[in-house]
């Protein structure tokens, strides 16, 4: 599903050049649930941004579902993001003047889908994350966990190839975190490919594979025994 070869990225900080990614190689196949771990500054967010086509690598190859992502203009990148990727952010990034339903329906709007169809589909995904009753509430009327579930529904609604989650439990307490991870595992069980960036050990261990990053290189890439989050959820 995802394949990166010898990926390099450096940032220009004044006269200094900061080499963030120093030649990464890895593959993610369909249906995997991968955690990317590392301390801050290890380059995990940069990697996720490149995978999410929000940023471009200086060197190396990135193949997403058989398509080489290279020399994309913004318009093309936007279309690919919409079609292939779903984003989940630490701070949810819901649009605060839109209801939960409208937030979930937004990516479909950018696909050019009609209003009726959009809302129907969005409602279906809200139901899947258990928030059907909250569909007409604004984000500030929802709890953190609910907001993140809306964000997950929004990421899912376009049926993307890959879900990219950036510290998705960073702003949640551990109980809510486990609930969200439980949801993510359920989605993964349905066959979706998910990449989770995190620095929390327990969250990482709820994935099926952990990629350890340090100073821009992969230091360890191991398959693990998955801990089911449902064990922690009453």
């Amino acid at each position, binding site marked *: 599903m995802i394949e990166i070869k010898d990926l390099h990225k450096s940032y220009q900080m004044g006269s200094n050049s900061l080499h963030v990614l120093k030649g990464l190689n890895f593959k993610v196949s369909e249906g995997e649930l991968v955690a990317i771990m590392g301390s801050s500054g290890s380059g995990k967010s940069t990697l996720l941004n490149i995978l999410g086509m929000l*940023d471009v690598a200086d060197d190396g190859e990135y193949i997403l579902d058989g398509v080489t992502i290279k020399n994309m203009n*913004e318009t093309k990148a936007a279309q690919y993001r919409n079609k292939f990727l779903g984003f989940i952010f630490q701070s949810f990034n819901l649009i605060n003047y839109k209801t939960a339903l409208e937030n979930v329906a937004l990516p479909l709007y950018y696909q050019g889908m009609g209003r009726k169809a959009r809302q129907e589909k969005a409602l279906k995904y809200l139901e899947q994350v258990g928030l059907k009753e909250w569909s007409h509430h604004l984000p500030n009327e929802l709890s953190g966990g609910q907001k993140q579930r809306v964000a997950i529904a929004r990421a899912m609604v376009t049926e993307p190839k890959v879900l990219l989650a950036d510290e998705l439990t960073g702003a949640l307490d551990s109980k809510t975190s486990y609930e969200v991870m439980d949801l993510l595992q359920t989605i993964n069980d349905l066959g979706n490919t998910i990449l989770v960036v995190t620095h929390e050990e327990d969250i990482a261990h709820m994935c099926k594979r952990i990629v350890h990053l340090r100073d821009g290189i992969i230091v360890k890439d191991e398959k693990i025994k998955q801990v089911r989050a449902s064990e922690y959820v009453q």
Partner: protein
Amino acid sequence: MRLLFDRNTWQEIFGSIRKNKIRTIITVIGVLWGIFVYIALSGAAKGMDNGFERSFENIAMNSLFAWAQSTSIPYEGFKTGRSLQLKLNDATVIQNRIPEIQYIAPRNVRGVFGDAPGAIVRGTKSGSYAVYGDFPVFTSIATKEIYDNGRFINEADIEQSRKVAVIGERTQQELFEKDEDPIGGYIRIDNIYFQVVGVHKFTQGGGFGGDGDIHIPFSTYKKLYNTGENVGWFSIAAYDDADVVQVEKDVKSVLKGIHRVHPDDERAFGSFNLGEIFNRIMGFSKGLTFISLIVGVATILAGIIGIGAILLISVKERTKELGVRRALGATPREIRSLIILECVFLTVISGVMGIILGAAVLNVVSNATQDIDFPYTNPTVPIPLVLGAMALMVIMGTLIGMIPAQRAVSIRPIDALREE
């Protein structure tokens, strides 16, 4: 284009406008004020314009009067200070010599320039009114509206020196009973009986003249007051395309030639150039229109620039939202059109409101000034000007909107989404 007619686009725009109510209202007020000033000013200017035009509507706009005074330069053996007298024949000479003249009406009057007015008697009623000796051509220079059943002096009256009179509204009220038909009735002007053939409606403007004026045939006047070939003054109307100032000069120089006056004698003949005055007033009102246009357009521009500035701030505020939209698959084009359309939409809405408000105010002012003696009639703003303003707003709204739109697009989604 497809974007413009897509209901979804508008839902997005309404969403973001509704979210920022105060911002929207302040923005709207900026342009609303601009277009309001524009409409109110140019409407008022047009009202003045119409008002002036109405004030002059009963007299030819390119007309002038000329009369004789006395010489100030000795010439051909005549000493200075010689009194001059216009003669009836002068009219023919002037008309023949100056092709730009359309009509020339010799006139005489009694009771306007300090001499005694005509004593008018009818039965037990009497009064003093100005009496004019007129030719029918006078009505071609200054419109005299005559009430039903009546007429003005005609050629036959002149030829036969008929004793007929056209009286004023006030004269009718003062000499006749309310339900009495004055037409055919007789009045005594300085002891000579005249038959009333018409009553003229009095309209303000165009020099002297009143609602009690009595007009009698020029030929009758000269017999009545023994004025011979003397003429008080000439009322002259030039053709529409003629230069009235030049005509005025020509008339004077022809008169100087006839009456053997030094060509440089400025005091020998007096004149009053209504055309020139009129042109000056029209120039003034044109200037007013122009200024109101400039001020209005400038105010609109200021308002639109205000919208641009507020949107620029709002884009900064919405950095994160726009980043999310980008991450969710909004193309730069879609982001750009969202901001531009928001700008244009706000501009147009406030423009329309400003136009309505401006029109309402013009209407109120128009009603308030209807019955007072002020040159202000029917203040309107020509449709092309309104459409022009709308077009200007859409174009400027788009151009100004491009600045925040470009700013919105130039924000990279990753920067927008970076956690604080």
